[in-house]
């Protein structure tokens, strides 16, 4: 513990860096998967193409993606952008299936009623379909969030893993305390992110207090 107090500045700086590097993929991945998920829930062809493509990306181990992306993006190999892009792709892959489920979970009768009441396509999406899909979207987003926060530490091997730095540094110094603190702070950060999402859900989806259907992503979240 004395190590923590002596290095609190470093740990907090790494935690902040971790929050940013994990936060961007979570937000961008969620936003990007909404239109794609909506498209995939409407069209069988789009669903086949999108799910297959992202399944392939999802299957590629994180380290491999971190290394291949510079060749594709033209970035430097140790550029944090590679990590952010890789995690965003994983977040999209996980979230996309959840979004397809979420939009599919909205009853067709409800949508037909909305159309009968005079809702246009866009109006129906924003005011009927999206709010009703909300609880399932949120449940999946929570899984994506936790997975992304814990996965980011692997990126320490390519120089930008936030708290993952404590793992590589602790290993080089054979110092167990530093690694334990890295694990504890990563888990704490994941819990904070989760609490924020739950709170946002309470505010934005006040009607969904009852238990909602479970996210597809639950058994999936990836580790490396």
């Amino acid at each position, binding site marked *: 513990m004395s190590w923590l107090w002596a290095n609190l500045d470093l740990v907090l700086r790494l935690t902040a860096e971790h929050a940013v590097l994990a936060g961007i993929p979570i937000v961008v991945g969620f936003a990007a998967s909404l239109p794609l998920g909506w498209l995939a829930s409407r069209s069988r062809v789009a669903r086949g193409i999108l*799910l*297959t493509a992202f*399944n392939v990306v999802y*299957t*590629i*181990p994180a*380290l*491999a*993606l*971190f*290394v*291949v992306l510079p*060749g594709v993006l033209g970035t430097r*190999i140790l550029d944090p952008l590679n990590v952010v892009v890789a995690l965003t792709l994983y977040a999209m892959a996980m979230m996309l*299936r959840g979004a397809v*489920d979420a939009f*599919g*979970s*909205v*009853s*067709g009768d409800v*949508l037909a009623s909305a159309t009968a009441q005079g809702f246009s396509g866009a109006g129906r999406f924003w005011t009927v379909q999206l709010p009703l899909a909300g609880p399932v979207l949120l449940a999946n987003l929570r*899984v994506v969030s*936790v*997975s992304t*926060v*814990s*996965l980011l*530490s*692997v990126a*320490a*091997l390519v120089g930008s*893993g936030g708290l*993952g730095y*404590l*793992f*590589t540094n*602790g*290993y080089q110094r*054979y110092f167990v305390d530093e*690694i*334990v603190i*890295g*694990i504890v702070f*990563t*888990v704490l950060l*994941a819990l904070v992110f989760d609490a924020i999402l739950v709170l946002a859900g309470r505010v934005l989806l006040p009607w969904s207090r009852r*238990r909602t*259907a*479970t*996210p*597809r*992503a*639950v*058994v*999936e*979240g*990836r*580790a*490396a």
Partner: protein
Amino acid sequence: MNFFVDAFAFILDPANWAGDAGIGARLARHLALTGVSVLLAAVVAVPLGLLIGHTGRGRAAVIGITGAARALPTFGVLILFVLLGIQFGQGLSEGPVIAVLVILAIPPLLAGAYAGVEAVDDVTVDAARAQGMTEWQLLTRVELPLALPLLAGGLRSATLQVVATATIAAYVAQGGLGRYFIEGIQTRDYVRAVIGAILVALLALLLDGILAVVQRLVTPRGVSRGATRTTGTTARRPSRSSGATRAPVTEG
């Protein structure tokens, strides 16, 4: 793109496949690590998952375990175990690495087995009992075959995790395809890192493809994969399986 050309040239040169540090040896080691870990995890997780699914007891534990496992940074746990192994006089042995890989593979297998049995329709279970089946017969002849697609999905998910994590294990252990990557980063040899990336990605895609076929083959006729899945406009049918464990990815 030159990097990729060089990397492929290296991989396609048979000379690089031979020897103790060749692609062949490292591939074999990567596969052995993966196989042993998934097998050990299955021995623990599958019977337990089937039992939990059959009795309905302990599902809160399954949900808790899968959730907690997801929050743990695997890379940190891996290094922690290896350091503890060194402190307890094991030296740099495989033990700690395999232990972490097993721990990592348990949650998806457990969830797959549990969710598979749980997803079996109550009516089917009642019908089997009404025909005079014992609980054992019910489990082995009805619930297990119907659970196989989701169980295979859990196996697929677990294998994927272990292959990926065995790659980062190269940072703390010898052998495995991850070595190319680690060597490449340490010596700033980008081509070498790309070689590792290509090999690991191909291995993961190949294993995933094989297991997807297995999953298709074990699906009993008349059962759609991921039977609990809600599709299209059908409202979710209230059932025992409304809990927090869902089918692993079944789209192939």
